[in-house]
């Protein structure tokens, strides 16, 4: 099965997630959307996955794919999952929409042995330029919505997240940075559009 995602950076991040989780692992995808990633992991990696998603339309698409999903806010359901019940908890493009970040990450680290987080870097140079020279709230491929209709309520940079992990004493065990559908290593906080972190306690 091929993975079809229109945004190439996100496609690359999904392929990286597939590498990270490996074969036959158990995965909880928080904010699983239409279930494209879960379906890909199930078919290609024999992964056993479950998802949580707030959009009703997305739930229908997940059920069509034969996926196991809960229609809920991420914040509202985490207490039902036993500790260490998944190999991986994934927050791909959903962290920036979470209200209670501290609780959700703490709970994710309790439920999953490892947590994979993928988010758009708000300190990318193109965003800095838009804000600095144009004086407008940035709209880019990674952050495609205008200020008035974005689902995002958090705007964080790679540095912000690293600092956060340091304060919380979360261990960053893997990290990958994506720029224009390629991996990048140079000054990620300036040049990476998407960041992938694998963290543990």
């Amino acid at each position: 099965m091929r993975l079809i995602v229109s945004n190439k950076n996100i496609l690359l991040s999904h392929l990286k997630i597939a590498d990270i989780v490996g074969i036959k692992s158990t995965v909880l995808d928080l904010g699983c959307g239409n279930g494209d990633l879960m379906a890909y992991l199930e078919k290609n990696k024999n992964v056993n996955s479950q998802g949580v998603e707030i959009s009703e339309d997305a739930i229908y698409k997940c059920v069509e794919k034969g996926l196991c999903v809960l229609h809920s806010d991420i914040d509202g359901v985490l207490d039902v999952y036993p500790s260490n019940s998944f190999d991986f908890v994934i927050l791909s493009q959903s962290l920036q929409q979470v209200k209670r970040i501290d609780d959700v990450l703490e709970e994710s680290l309790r439920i999953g042995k490892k947590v994979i987080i993928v988010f758009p870097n708000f300190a990318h140079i193109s965003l800095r330029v838009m804000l600095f020279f144009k004086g407008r709230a940035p709209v880019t491929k990674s952050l495609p919505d205008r200020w008035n209709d974005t689902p995002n309520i958090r705007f964080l940079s790679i540095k912000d997240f690293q600092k956060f992990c340091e304060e919380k004493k979360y261990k960053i065990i893997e990290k990958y940075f994506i720029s224009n559908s390629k991996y990048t290593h140079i000054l990620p906080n300036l040049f990476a559009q998407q960041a992938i972190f694998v963290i543990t306690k």
Partner: protein
Amino acid sequence: MEHKLAIKISSKNVGIVETKYFTFNDLVLENKHKLSQVTVAYETYGTLSEKKDNAILIAHAFTGDAHCAGYHEGDEKPGWWDSMIGHKKAFDTDKYFVICSNVLAGCQGTTGPSSINPETGKEYGTDFPVISMADIVTVQKRLVEYLGIEKLLSVAGGSMGGMQVLQWAMSYPENICSAIPIATTMRHSPQQIAFNEVGRQSVMGDIAWKYGHYYQTGNPDRGLAVARMLGHITYMSDVSMQKKFPIKEKEKSVKFDFNADFEVEEYLRYRGSAFVKRFDANTYLYISKAMDHFDVQKEDFLPAEKNINIKFLVISFKSDWLYPSYQSENIVKYLKMKGQYVTYCNIHSTYGHDAFLLEIKDETNLIKNFLSNLYDEVNSVK
């Protein structure tokens, strides 16, 4: 064969159907009381596969019956869930064998308080033993066995039908692959019991009720009709009532008598009087009590050591205030904690509790795909 029908039956419909009957002896109830003979009214649609792995049981709600799809000879209205059962519908009768039966203590063909007690030759009335949701499901299990089915592909139902679905998972977890409880609860809240109690008081307060022995003297129609009117209010929502019965200028007149001035009054009166023609007051009492006492958690529901694997699809509706979404969410949470496979959707709807009979497109979307993926899986395992 030609049928005299005033309406044209769509090609998606299961067509003309008949209620069938199955009788067995000696049913021991949960409370150890015995019924010497039980008759079950049931209907089936579609064809049972050779492997007998495509059977789905539909459980009806409080006042429902076995006739959930197709038309009875001469009828103009189809069964109560006809839009969900048939060719390429949610419960696709091209693929699945669908069964529906009237519940124990019912009054639409299955043995209940209005049936003749073989020991006295008269109607049971309130001499009929108290029954539980577990007893209702035990009778369904007997029917399923009689039809030669060991394991059902699924059990599905809304409202009290959903309670039976949960009871199946409780009583016969090894005999179902999946369960679809819709707009239901693991136990009644005080509010739900309160509404049922007002309904019962209305029936029992009718002078014609006579402690349940009214079959020779005339039914407590007045009390039962009022109970039904109350029921109908709880099945709708503020929004759905506003849409259905917009208050017209002429209705606002200061002059009034005590006739039905408003459309909603007329509707409720009509519903009440239509209901008493098809429903038995004692059945109303027995079944509503069985619902109030239903509590799937009173015993260890889905114990871990039994290694039970049932796939659950839980559905609720946002405007349902009689069986609010939080009750379905509690089901989901409980099942998750027991490590069960659960998919849950809280469907946007303004219809209130009635939504499970009306939100056909969204329910179909979920149920059709859920069942088809499950059926493929069941077949690939074999």
